[in-house]
Structures are given as C-alpha cells and as structure tokens.
C-alpha cells in the first residue's frame, strides 16, 4: 500500500455524474454529509435531467451533483469550475465538459469498463471523450468502478455509487468510519442486507483509493461551537412553514417545488397541520384561500406554470384582502421551459401577473438559511397587512444543500389563537385606516361580523358597489398598504464599499456568487460593491441615493435580456432583465443588466469576468495604487 501525498486546499468543487438512475445523486448526498460531518462548509447543486429514465449513455442522461466543500464553514454558492469530476461513463463526463463546468487541469475519475466494453461504439466514444478531456488539460484517472463492485454484488447498478463515495472518501483523506455512519443513516429505511452491502462497497472503494492514489487532497475542517444543519432550500421552506405556524399547505405537484411539499407531508401532521394535494393548481390556491378566509393562514407552493394558473385567485386574495402566502420555486420558462433548472424569470409575473391593479408583497430569500426564516416573515406580513405575499425561491435554492447555523427552535414565534370575539352587528369588514389602508380582519364564527366577502369592488362595509368614487377608494386603500409596509423597511446594506465605479444589484439565490465576485474584484483593486434586495415589492427606501454613489449600476439576474449587440437590437427596443426594468422605472437611472438563462447558477468567476470588462480600465486608470489596499490584503 502506497502512502499518498496529501495536498492541502482551502476549498474544492467536486462533481459526481452518472446515467439517471445509477445513483450518483445518492453518492453525492453521502459525500456531502461526510464532508459536513467532518467539519467542512458546503454548498451542493443537483445536476438533474428532466426525465426519470432518459436514454442511457447520452449527455442528456447525466445526473448527479456538484459539491463545493471548504475550510470555512460558510459557503454561499456553488462555486466556480470543478476541480474533480467522478463520472460513471464518458457521456456523463462529456456533458460536464460541454457545460464548461471543469477547471483547467481538473482531475477526472472515470469508470474504466468502457475501455474494453463489448459495444465497440462505447469503446470508441470513451477514447474520444478522454482525449478531449486531456486536451482540456484534465488529468484522467481510470478507476475499476464496475469491475470492483461486481466482486461484491451481482448487479453493479445497485452499488457502484457507494464504491464511488468510498473512492472520494480516500481522495479527500476523510474518515471511513464517519462515511459508514453516514451511509447507515442514509439507508435507514432499507433492509439490513442493503445497508451492509452499501457499507461494504464504500469500504472497498476507500481501500482502492488508499492503495492506488499517489496524491490525495485535504480540506481542513473549521471548528465552530455553533451547531450546524445541512439541508436543501425546499426542506428549509418546509421546516420554516412548520415553524411559522402554518396549518395548511395546499399544493399540486410541480417541479422543482414539489419536494418542499414532500418534506412537509412527512412531518406536518405531527405539528397540527397537513398538506392537501389538490386536483389542480387553481384548486390548490383556492383551498388555501378558503382556509385563510376561515381564519387559518395557509400557503400554497408552486412553480412558474402553476403561478400562471393561480393568477385569478391571486386577484381574489388581493381584492378580498385575504392573507395568503404563495411560494414560487422558479424554474426555466416560458411554458414548460426547463423544468428542473434555475431561472429568475417570474419576478414580473409575481409583481404584475394578475389582471387589474393587484398590489402584493414579493420577497425573495437569497440563501437556504433564509428559506427557513422567510415564511415566518411572509406570514406576519400577510396577516398584519391582509395581503398576498409571494415568496420567490428558485431551483438553485430548492435542490442545493447548504450548511447554516442550527435555528433555535425556542425562538419560534408563538401563534395567537383564532380571535372569535364578538363585534357590534354591522362592524365594517374593511374599516380602512385612511392613512395606511390597514383594517381588522373579521373571520367566520365571530358574532356580529356576518356579511359577504366579495370579489366585486366594495367599500368599507364590504358591499358591492360600482361607482367611481368608491372604486378609486378601494384601489387606493389596497395600494396604500404597500406604502405602509415600505415605511417599515430599511435601506439595504451595501456589500463592499459605500461608493465606487460599479454597483451590482441582485435578488434571490445569486447573492453568494455576486458577493464572491465582489470579493474577487476588490482583491484586484476594482471599486465594485453589491446590493441585494430581499423585498421586491415594496422596494426598500434609499435605493436612488445608494445608486447615485456609483459610477454605474447593473443588475445581475438569471433571466433573459436582449444582447445590445445582437441584430436589430437598439436602445429603443432592447428588453432588459426584469429587476433592471423595475429599477429603471422607479429610479429613472440608466441601470443596465448582466443577465442570461444558462439553466444553472452563475459562477462567481463569470460575474467577476464581466465586472472586469466593464470597469477594469476605469478603476485601473485611476492611478498606480489600488484604491482599496486593505481589501486586497484581506483577500490575498
């Protein structure tokens, strides 16, 4: 047995890819748990095909996970190009090469069975893809994934993923005993035979790695006294819904939102609530609205196409001032689009999607940790302001895993009991405060409050009316609530410096990548900062003043905008990214955007490269001294 040379690295990004159904995702979960339990910070992203069983051995079948592990406990995004990829076949590897996902000089571990496979076409494509990988600068290391697994099992499909995790355990100098524990927990619902086989294969993979690798990596653990949890954003939403005191989640299955409802279904009944799977997206929000009207604030969880179907009910919630929370886990659109992949394209729809003027609150969590807390905030706003609150998550947050400080459950807010105290007969159901538009909500069962809640225009007494004056008043009062909420918000903090050449403005899950790009840029001496918006409606105060301190302001978004250099596109017809539109309209500043629809999260380096082309010369031309030497020190 050789003793491998250990190379210490502050962080690494690893991808594990197989054909769909071969278990790379499970392997990745096990590896991520191993890293987390060993004290590494972590962010993972799923690589998911849109079909359950796409044609095997094709690039479209590549399924797996990207794991970014680091010394520091807080990892905020999926990182840059991968340092290591473990592929079960060459087409899975090719898909990552084509996606531009591998760093120059990345280490490729690949199953060697294809080199001698009975299907000659596989042999040929295996040779070709490996050649391509080497040309890309990759170091290729062939590993006997299938062959070794077959020594332990009759069907390699059912275990080579565990052998693969064992190999990675050795490659990253991790403790195989911790891995065995992780696997036992991961397979706790499986039979003892399955668990034993998985543990045995992982051990075999580990032994293989220890015996054969001349070099291995070490990402040192960080030591923290604060307990950490690791989960994906959809699980965080589910636990957050429980903590926020929701009692009903009404939903209809839709990717990539559904796993939030899976997690919720699993536990909700023990917490006094339940998940209702409705017959369609429309009924899903209708049931939530009915429950909320009856006094129990409910939520519905969906994605873009479901949002489209729910728009009429959104208008009803706004018109009747029924508190309601919608979570939209955004995916690629329009139409069915890219069902498993990230996009931030529903912002305009969330803001303006319903016919008529329908003011509503829109907030976006920017980390998985925020996914846990956001529903408490959403619920409070929905109830206090009698408003529809839309929470915009996305596929990146939904399926990625992050390590964050364990929430203190004792801090969970207590829910007030249902107020059924009598009111004088004829009490006004919309007793609007003329300044704020706020009013007390009456619920069925309250003596004296009997009356109709209608989708028609109505006045303070709730009764339908059609005249100009009262229609104007109803609109003004519903709109005023947004202003009242806006007055309670504080200007968002700027990340980096308070002034400079360029301000990047983002929202949602791009935060980690944007801030890392800002770090990279400032380390190079560029005067670049960023600002992240949690509230998209109402927008927080002070944006215009903050923007004025920067030479340029651009938004960074994962949605479509026209390339200004594309044919036919000019200043008059160019369509901007969605937040850019809104900020241009609200600030009257010439705000540009860096926006595209790659179906994956931005890598910090991509944003950084754009920043460099935008302001590189400006910042550099200022003089020989970098403007912020301390920033350079901090990141060197």
């Amino acid at each position, binding site marked *: 047995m050789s003793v491998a040379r250990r190379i210490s690295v502050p962080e690494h990004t690893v991808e594990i890819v197989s054909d769909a159904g071969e278990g790379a995702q499970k392997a990745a979960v096990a590896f991520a748990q191993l890293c987390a339990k060993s004290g590494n910070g972590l962010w993972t992203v799923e690589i998911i095909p849109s079909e359950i069983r796409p044609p095997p051995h094709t690039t479209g079948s590549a399924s797996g996970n990207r794991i970014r592990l680091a010394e520091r406990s807080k990892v905020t995004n999926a990182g840059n190009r991968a340092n290591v990829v473990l592929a079960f076949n060459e087409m899975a590897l090719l898909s990552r090469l084509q996606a531009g996902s591998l760093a120059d000089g990345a280490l490729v571990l690949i199953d060697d069975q294809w080199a001698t496979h009975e299907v000659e076409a596989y042999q040929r494509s295996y040779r070709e893809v490996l050649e391509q990988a080497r040309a890309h600068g990759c170091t290729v290391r062939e590993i006997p994934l299938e062959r070794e697994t077959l020594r332990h099992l009759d069907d390699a499909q059912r275990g080579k993923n565990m052998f693969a995790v064992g190999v990675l355990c050795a490659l990253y100098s991790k403790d195989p005993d911790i891995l065995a524990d992780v696997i036992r927990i991961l397979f706790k619902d499986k039979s003892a035979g399955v668990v034993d086989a998985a543990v045995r294969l992982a051990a075999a993979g580990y032994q293989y790695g220890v015996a054969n690798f001349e070099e291995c990596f070490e990402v040192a653990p960080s030591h923290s006294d604060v307990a950490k949890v690791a989960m994906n954003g959809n699980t965080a939403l589910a636990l957050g819904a429980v903590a926020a005191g929701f009692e009903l989640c009404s939903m209809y299955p839709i990717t990539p939102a559904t796993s939030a409802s899976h997690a919720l279904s699993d536990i909700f009944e023990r917490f006094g609530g339940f998940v209702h799977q409705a017959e369609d997206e429309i009924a*899903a929000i209708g049931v939530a609205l009915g429950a909320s009207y009856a006094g129990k604030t409910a939520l519905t969880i969906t994605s873009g196409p479901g949002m489209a179907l729910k728009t009429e009910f959104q208008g009803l919630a706004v018109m009747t001032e029924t508190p309601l929370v919608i979570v939209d886990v955004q995916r690629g659109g329009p139409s069915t689009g890219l069902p498993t992949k990230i996009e931030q394209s529903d912002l305009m729809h969330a803001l303006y999607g319903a016919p008529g003027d329908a003011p509503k609150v829109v907030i976006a969590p920017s980390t998985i940790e925020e996914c846990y807390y956001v529903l408490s905030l959403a619920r409070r706003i929905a109830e206090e302001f009698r408003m529809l609150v839309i929470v915009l998550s996305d596929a990146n947050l939904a399926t990625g895993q992050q390590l964050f400080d364990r929430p203190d459950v004792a801090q969970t807010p207590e829910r007030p009991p249902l107020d059924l105290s009598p009111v004088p007969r004829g009490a006004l159901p919309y007793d609007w405060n003329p300044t704020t538009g706020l009013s007390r909500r009456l619920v069925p069962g309250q003596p004296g409050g009997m009356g109709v809640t209608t989708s028609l225009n109505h006045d303070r007494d709730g009764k339908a009316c059609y005249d100009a004056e009262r229609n104007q008043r109803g609109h003004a009062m519903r709109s005023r609530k947004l202003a009242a909420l806006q007055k309670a918000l504080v200007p968002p903090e700027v990340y980096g410096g308070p002034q400079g050449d360029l301000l990047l403005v983002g929202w949602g899950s791009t935060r980690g990548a944007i801030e890392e790009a800002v770090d990279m840029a400032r380390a190079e001496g560029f005067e670049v900062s960023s600002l992240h918006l949690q509230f998209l409606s109402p927008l927080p105060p002070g944006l215009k003043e903050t923007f004025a301190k920067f030479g340029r302001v651009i938004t960074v978004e994962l949605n479509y905008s026209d390339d200004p250099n594309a044919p036919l596109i000019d200043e008059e017809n160019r369509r901007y990214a969605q937040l850019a539109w809104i900020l241009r309209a609200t600030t009257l500043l010439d705000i540009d955007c860096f926006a595209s629809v790659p179906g994956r999260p931005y890598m910090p380096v991509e944003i950084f490269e754009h920043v460099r082309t935008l302001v590189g010369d400006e910042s550099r031309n200022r003089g020989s001294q970098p403007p912020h030497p301390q920033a350079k020190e901090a990141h060197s």
Partner: protein
Amino acid sequence: MIAKLAEESLLEVCALKEHTIEDYEAERPRWCTGCGDHGVLAALQRVLRKNNLDPENVVSVSGIGCSSRLPHYLGTYGFHGIHGRALPIATGVRLARPELPVIAIMGDGDCFSIGGNHWLHAIRYNINAVVLVLDNEVYALTKMQASPTTPDGWKTNTTPRGTYLHPLNPLSAVMGMTNVSFLAQTATWLPAHLDETIEKAWEHHGLSFVRILQRCPVFMPRAFGEGGLHFPIMFLEHEDGIPVHPSLSSRGGVQPHDPRNINEAQRVAVTVDPAPMGLLYQNTELPAYEDIRWQRTEKPDRATFLERLDDVMNEYTVS
C-alpha cells in the same frame, strides 16, 4: 309535542336564542322577478331557521353568476368568489374550520363547465357541505349563452341557429363517480319538495349534491316546460328519501326507489323523461375528507411542538 317542550326548556335553560327568519336576511335580493333564485334563498333561510343555527357559524360560498349572488342576500358569513371556483374555497373553509357548516351555491355554467374539474374532485373528497347547483340551462348574467345543460337545438347568443350538442346529464355524471355520498334533484316550482330536499341535504354528513331545476324568466323562460308547467317528472319515494306530499302527485308520477342502491341510482340518473325528483343516492358510510385529515392530525401543545421541531432539526444537524 314532548320533543317540542323539551326543546323549549332546553332553550330556556341554556338561554339559547331562538332565531327568526330575519336573522338570516341581509341585503334585499336583486334578482329578476320570477327568478327561481328567490325560492332557493327562502328555502335555505327556512332550513337554517328550522335548525336554529347561529348565523355567524354558517358560511355560504359561491362562484360567479346570477345565483352566485346568494351570499350577498343571506345573513350569514358569505364568500362570493370567482367563476367556477366555489368548491375549492368551500373545501378550504371545511379543512380549516370543520365546526362551520358550509353551503356552496353555483350555477350550471359555474359548476358543470368552468368548474367541472372541481365538481368532480369535491365529490371525490366528500367534504361535508351542502352543494346546490341552480340549473337554469343558460348563462344568464352574461346574457344568454349556451351552457352544458342547454337543451338540444335551443337558440342562444352563441348558438343563434341552435345548440350543436346534446345537453350534459349532471345526474348521470355524478353517479358515474362511485365516491358520491348524496345526490338529489328538485325544482323551484316545487317549493315544499325543495325545502325537504335542502333539509335532507343539510342532515347528510358528507357532500350533499343537489341539482335544482329552475327557469330563467328573462333568457330561458321556456326551460323545463315553462318552469314546470309541461315538464314530465317522477318523484322517487322511500322511507329514507325525500317525502312526497300527496299534493305533489298531481305534478308527476311516484316511483319507489331505494337511495342506498347504487345500481338503481345509476339507472334512475340516466333517465331524463320523466326527470327523477328526490333522493337518488345516499351513502352514509363514506367518511368526509376533513374528518379523515383532522383525525390524523395531532394537536401538540407548544412545549411538545417545540420539542418535536427540535427533534426534526436533529435529523439535519451535522456538527
């Protein structure tokens, strides 16, 4: 008599208020003169009064259409929603507050057309609610378009040379779903039968689906043989069914029918001439969806709630 005395003494002991019809009145209805909706509203008010329900503990839910204005005129809590969606809202109310009785009111276009999916599934869920479809065989509020139940060849604004399709038979559609727990048909020109039918629906625990035939005096005055004048009907009679008063026998024949027999109910449901009136089917064994869900939902106190949340957090704790 003894029951009446017992009730009176109970009222006295508990100081319970005995409600009057006025307690269930709200705004003055604005339906056209001669519209059957007036009769349904009055029947509902009589049933609520008879059961002496506190108006604050009753919720009526509707969609959009002439009949869907009913919650505006009923003195309970009411929700006048959007077209076709009364049943999801009603389901939400029932799931959230199973102590509140719910009445859902829809028209034929509302329920059978735009709300068709919810109609099917609400019956499958079997929420405990009284569901009334006021079927005038036409879209009236939007001024006379064909609905799924508009008779063969009748002229409307969207079918100026006559309808193209045979009308939907809502009864046979409902009886095709073996999840149904209560199906009855009545008509506004038979007020005593209407009262008895709504009363029976009220007593049933589960989704009581009632189709109420009524003409639209403005846009469909000829419907149902000019509002029952020349409309062949057959009363279904059974001791567990809806009573057929002797005075009704002049309006149609009487036929024995066991509402617990699903095959008989299916056979009767496909009959349109004469139209069956009364209780077609009732299954008192079918559990209501909200009961199932609440039985399986635990009600932990705050300490237990936090303890359990902590346990769940343990599962995700890595260091």
